[in-house]
């Protein structure tokens, strides 16, 4: 039934561009004014919404299409607003609370705001399943294209590192392998190869379980073989997490890294893990014409 191929036409990412400070990466904030023109909206938006919306709009810039689906992913969503509202319930004793942080605390805020700012009434959904969030969104987007339901789809992930999530996850030991990170990466997918096309998405895989290193290696070579790929370069989390840090949707940065930071063309396997969630994305990278 897979009649159409899936191509990455455009990419955008906002990520940490410096060293971690006290074990925490933070993104290099762009000038949001350029992307979110209305001052009132900008003021109401929390950092995660601003960064996600900006990366989404950057990805659409100069592309002559209006996506027929906007699909976002986030592991923990709009934490700053969630915390702000929780705090106000306590401090104001349930009286006269400002609704803004509540309104913007929902997980679909970024996708909704991109739709609103780009006047897009198409399919809109948000995936929120730990380290499967981004790959689920990618799968949905690929299915939209493969079935011919859409000709172009915007898929992206976003995560913010707040002091609270840093402390809590530090107490849980989440930052042992890599420093804590954050960021947002978006991809415009299409079903036709053009001169702008960056790569073709060959496969997406999600596996949950307590796998040994050998089992994982086997799973990954099976994935390549099933998709008729004999040789692929590997972009592992050891390559991209020292740049973006650890977060639930960091694999979206891994895909951005593979698309933009590797030289030459050919197949690339991007791998990620978080707790017992293992994901892999296979792309065929093109040299820009």
């Amino acid at each position, binding site marked *: 039934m897979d009649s159409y191929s899936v191509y990455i036409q455009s990419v955008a990412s906002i990520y940490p561009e410096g060293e971690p400070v006290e074990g925490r990466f933070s993104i290099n904030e762009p000038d949001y004014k350029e992307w979110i023109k209305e001052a009132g909206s900008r003021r109401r938006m929390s950092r995660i919404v601003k960064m996600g919306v900006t990366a989404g709009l950057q990805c659409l810039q100069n592309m002559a299409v209006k996506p027929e689906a906007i699909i976002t992913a986030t592991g923990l969503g709009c934490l700053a607003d969630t915390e702000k509202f929780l705090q106000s319930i306590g401090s104001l004793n349930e009286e006269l609370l400002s609704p803004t942080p509540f309104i913007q605390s929902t997980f679909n805020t970024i996708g909704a705001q991109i739709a*609103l700012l780009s006047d897009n009434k198409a399919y*809109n959904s948000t995936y929120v399943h730990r380290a499967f969030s981004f790959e689920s969104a990618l799968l949905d987007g690929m299915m939209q294209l493969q079935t011919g339901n859409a000709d172009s789809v915007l898929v992206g992930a976003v995560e913010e590192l707040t002091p609270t999530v840093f402390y*809590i996850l530090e107490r849980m030991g989440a930052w042992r392998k890599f420093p804590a990170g954050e960021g947002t990466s978006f991809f415009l997918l299409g079903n036709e190869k053009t001169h702008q096309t960056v790569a073709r998405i060959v496969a997406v895989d999600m596996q949950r379980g307590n796998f040994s290193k050998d089992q994982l290696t086997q799973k990954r070579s099976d994935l390549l073989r099933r998709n008729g790929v004999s040789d692929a370069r590997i972009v592992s989390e050891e390559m991209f997490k020292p740049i973006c840090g650890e977060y639930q949707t960091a694999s979206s940065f891994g895909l951005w890294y593979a698309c933009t930071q590797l030289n030459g063309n050919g197949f690339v396997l991007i791998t990620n893990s978080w707790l017992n969630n293992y994901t892999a994305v296979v792309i065929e990278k093109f040299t820009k014409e």
Partner: protein
Amino acid sequence: MSVAITGIGCVSGLGCGADEHLQAFRSGRSGLGKVTLFQTKLQVPVAEVKMSNEQLKDQLGLDPDRLFSRTALLGMTAGKQAFQDAGLSKGRLRIGLISSSSVGGMDLSEQFFTEYSVNPGKGRLRMVAHHDIGDHTECIADYLQLDGFRTSISTACSSSANAIMFGARMIEQGLLDAVIAGGADALCRFTLNGFNSLMILDKAPCRPFDESRTGLNLGEGAGYLVLQSEKSLTPGTKVYCRLTGYANANDAYHQTASSPEGEGAFLAMLHALGKAGIESATVDYINVHGTGTNNNDLSESTAIKRLFGEYVPPFSSTKPFTGHTLGAAGGLEAVFSVLALHERVIFPNLNFKTPIMQTGLSPVTRMREDQDITTVLSNSFGFGGNNASLIFQK
């Protein structure tokens, strides 16, 4: 290619399982009452599931000392019903789980946060480890011993409908044979205060589609369907009905308000009809979103009138019975839509007296039995302009 519905599961303020829900609908008994689950000074009706976490754990046969979010407990309760109702078992089929929620483990996070906000070194970590939406899905998967594909969706009040839609698409694409799809949401201080801050909570029982409506009542619960590919059905498999149409559209109007012309709702219904390949006149009953807020009911009425013209089919909102169960609403109302077809009934819209002046639509107000219905449309709309419609057919 259509998708068969072979199992249903539900828990809400009306009770546990399809039979208790049907009884409540037939007797006109609403699940609304006072808040008892947590401390609050907000005096508003809510529809709580009338079981404590301990009772839910006991009924599920879970270790009473193990910590679960209430959302996960509700999800496991309804998920188990659906799984067993469909007679699913491990092994033969590729079974997926697609669940959704708007708050996930917020009930526990609230407790954690009270201690944490005083001292960041405090607060029991196991309380906040269940915060994310994915947690409740993983709990259901573990409980049902499912080891295949699972994911979670959160698009505010349309979450479950999107989960069902994604499940159907995965089956149609041949990626899975069966999917348990729906959602769960527990009541918590966070959402109660959130809707209160928006000033859209009614202090009285909600009155969807009534001229005098002033807001919604919150509820909690979970609802799941088992979707199966035609190929995976064996002789003797009970098939309730089929999911033939679905669509999702964005209103792109305002973060929380619906557009006056109900554009997103109109597009979702229109495209769902298109996917099912049917005319609007085929629809025999609409289980409307009908929250009871000024904005939703007017916008939804307008969209319905735009789509159906003069011949608006019988419709009702079941939210005066269950409250608005947010992320679970699309799942619960999908179960109700399946029950309407299976039991040949149309549920009453409680508390309705006077039609909205601008649109003049009147919902069904008494339980209708022995209805000749073959096609039901279910609407779920949410914050962020996320609108979704599902079509079930016999």
